[in-house]
Every structure is written in C-alpha cells, then in structure tokens.
C-alpha cells in the first residue's frame, strides 16, 4: 500500500514536472507577417497569416517560420505567381525561418513591455543570414505579444532583380511581424 502511494506520488510529480516544462514554451496562436516593396513606379504589398512559432522563455530560445506560398495581396495574381516562381522559388524553398536566442536577460513570466534583440539565423530563399532583430514584446495575462519591423535586402538572399523591373521592385523589402503567443 505504501509502495502504491509512492508510485502515485512519483506519477503526480512527473506530471507536474512535465506540465511545468510545457508552460515555459509559448506558441503562436495568431500571427501576421507582411512585407512591402517601395519602388519608384510600383508599391507591392503582401501578407500571410500562416505564421508558426515557438518561444521558450526560460532559455529564451525561439523559432519562427512562414510558408512563402501563403503570402497574398500583391497587385495581381500574375505578380503572386512570379513571386513564387521566379523570385522566391517557393517549390524549392517553401519557408522563411528565423531561429535563435533573445540577447537580453528579460523575465518574460512577468507582465510588462520589453524591447528585446533577437539574434539568430534568418533564412529566406534557402540562404541564411545572421541577424539581430529588434522587437517589442508585451507580456500580459500569460500571453505574449511580439511586434517587430525590419528590412531584408534581396541581394543578401541571392534574389536578383531583372533590369526591366528595376523601377518596380525595391532592393530593400520592409517586413513587419505581429504575433500573439500563448502557452503551448
């Protein structure tokens, strides 16, 4: 009988410890990534709600990704096709990812607003760049909201701009991210 209660205690302990482990990981419940190209002759905008992401708040590790084919908007369906077919090559490189670690020693278990720098590998078009991206993080009622704006140089990711669209496509793309995370 004693032994049995011992087993139950261990089971309980293992469950709680597992649960505690889980609670440290937050995952994206809703997110939006949008980008904009401001060229002299054309402004191109597109966005995706298909954002996946995990954030571990104890070690401050994170992993985010977005499916390139999920981007919509653009100025025409043909432009979207060219985006996937000629520039991003979505069938070869289906995702953009950003994996890494938060530099600042912040306690994201406590409510508040923080400005952090996320350092990691940013991969688009199959090419990784080490980036430090500044983000605003708001923690409230056990939910984490991340807002971030940064730019991506097409040249950094081996996406050439053909001469004929030189004035229609900017070499620097502005990206905005907005995600809400909840405990996993």
């Amino acid at each position, binding site marked *: 009988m004693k032994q049995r209660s011992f087993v139950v205690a261990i089971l309980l302990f293992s469950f709680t410890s597992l649960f505690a482990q889980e609670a440290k990981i937050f995952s994206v419940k809703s997110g939006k990534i949008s980008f904009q190209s401001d060229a002299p002759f054309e402004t191109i905008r597109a966005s995706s709600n298909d954002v996946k992401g995990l954030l571990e708040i104890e070690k401050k590790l994170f992993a985010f990704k977005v499916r390139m084919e999920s981007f919509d908007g653009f100025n025409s*369906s043909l432009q979207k096709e060219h985006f*996937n*077919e000629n520039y991003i*090559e979505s069938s070869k490189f289906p995702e953009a990812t950003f994996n890494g670690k938060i530099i600042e020693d912040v306690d994201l278990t406590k409510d508040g607003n923080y400005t952090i720098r996320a350092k990691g590998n940013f991969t688009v078009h199959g090419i990784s760049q080490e980036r430090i991206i500044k983000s605003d993080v708001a923690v409230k009622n056990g939910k984490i909201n991340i807002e971030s*704006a940064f730019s991506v140089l097409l040249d950094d990711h081996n996406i050439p701009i053909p001469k004929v669209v030189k004035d229609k496509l900017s070499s620097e793309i502005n990206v905005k991210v907005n995600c809400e995370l909840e405990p996993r």
Partner: protein
Amino acid sequence: MYKKFVVLIIAFVCAGHIVAQDLDLSKMLEEESSKEDKMRTNYTSATFKSTRLINGHSVETLGKGILDFRISHRFDKFSDGFYEMFGLDHAKMRIGLDYGLTDRFMFGLGRSTYEKQYDGFVKYKILRQTSGFKKMPVTVDVMASVMRRKDTAAIISELITNHALSVKDIPWSRKMYYCFQVIIARKFNESTSLQIMPTLIHNNIVKKASDPNNNIAIGIGGRQKISKRVSINGEYYYVLPAYKFEGTTNSLSFGVDIETGGHVFQLHLTNSTGMTERSFIAKTQKEGSQWSKGDINFGFNISRVFVIGKKKTQSKYKIAEGH
C-alpha cells in the same frame, strides 16, 4: 514488482527531463506543422508561361481582372529565298485582346490578316492539378472558339466555282467555323510540362464536296525550362486522315518563351501561317509547308498584361505604419 515499476517511472521522468533539456524548437515546430502539411492541398501553378503554347492554347488561363494584349506575327517561309529576304518581306498577323473574368475563366477576341478572320474564344479550367491532401494528376481545360472569314472575294472564287453557288447562296452563317478543344496538362516538375489537346473543328462550308465538314485532331505540346525565365516549347497537331482536308499537312512548331516582368515574348519556328485554330490545325497546306524543304516560318507572339480589376484583398490590407 512494484520496485521495478517505480524504477521504470523514475527512468521515464529522467528521460523526459533529458529530452527537454536538449531543446530544439525548430524541430518541434517542424513536427507541429508536418501534421498540417499533410492536410493541405497544393495547387500547381505556372504549368506554362503563357495562355498560348505557340499557335494553340496552353492550359493556362489569365488571372481574375487581367487584360492581355497580344500581337502575333508569322513571317513567310525561309525557302522563299533571298529575294523575299527569307520570308521577312511578308507577314501574317493577329491582334487580340484577352480578359480573365475569374481565375479559371477567360475569353478573348482577335482579328487576323490571314483570310481576314475575326475570332472569339472562351476557355475554362475544369480541373486543377494538385498535390498533398487532395491529389489530382492533371489540369483540364475546355476551350471553344468561333471564327469567321471576311475575305469575300476569296470565298467566292474558292467556293462558288466548286459548288456552283451564287453569292446569295452563301449566307453569313456559312462563313462561320467552330473549334472545340479539351486541354489536358501535367506539370511533371518545375521545368517540364506536357499537354495533349483533342480537338474538333467544324466548318460550315468546305472547299470541295469530298472534304469533311469536321476535322478531328490530337495535339501534343510541351515545355522545358532552361532558366527561370526562359523555356523551350514544342507543339504538334496530328489530324486524323479521315477528317483531313485534301492537300493539307500537320502543324509542327518549336518555340522559345522569354518572360520579363509583365511581358512574355514567344519566338518560334512553324510550318503554319494562320493563327486561329482552323487555320493552323486544318489548313496548313502540304504545298509550301514542309519542314524538310525549309518551308519554315519565323514568328513571334508578344503578350503584355495589364491589371484591370484591383484585387479586393488589396484594400482590406494595410500595414500598420510606425517604427
């Protein structure tokens, strides 16, 4: 017994901790989304670069709200020699305007100098090639076109002499021609696509009493991309001998597609001079259209697309300004 059980549980708990310590978030993310990936249906896009393969239709349709202005030229044959500058002194042309009403339905109008034809067509994508959750191996379109000859003098000389008819006996409906096509295409990979095109052409009037009113043909076409923006195409229409006009041959063409932004340039070599279905499928003349004798016409299609209807998603969408 219990002791073993306890040890086992402790081992599991420890193992759990070890796994948790060796945290790989990107791997976890991968596992999470792989379930979703299995449930997703991916629609194949860009099987071909343009709505035309060379002379005939490809399986592609224009997107919603896209207007396509097309100019097509076919010069005369190389075998004409130096005096005719290897065919470049003369050309047949077609000027056309196509519009995408939905992402799967398009129509177009055109005018050809060849036999002074007007033509109109509708094309609808019935099935789309998919991979993933729902699998569909091919994209299937139906295309119907109507053509009308306006070269009255030629019709009179061609038809009246053969049929012993007077001009009054040729009402306008007699100058109408129809074409029905099913286009079945498959994109095998990023660079290789093939399509077959069973085709029926109906002629309201034909040259000789012995000529069939219907031409039945099987077309086959394909493309091979050689770079992101350049592909090599081929197109061949085999007309069933029982449904073939006397003195005609099959249409065979090769071409290159070059895509630059909103333009697609299609350069090709073909033994046909007409650019409507009845002209190149059924009326490519045996005399003077032999590849082996150098009766090859150089030609090009230029396509320029304009976006007419702004997409709704555009207005709904706004990036929050700031930073």
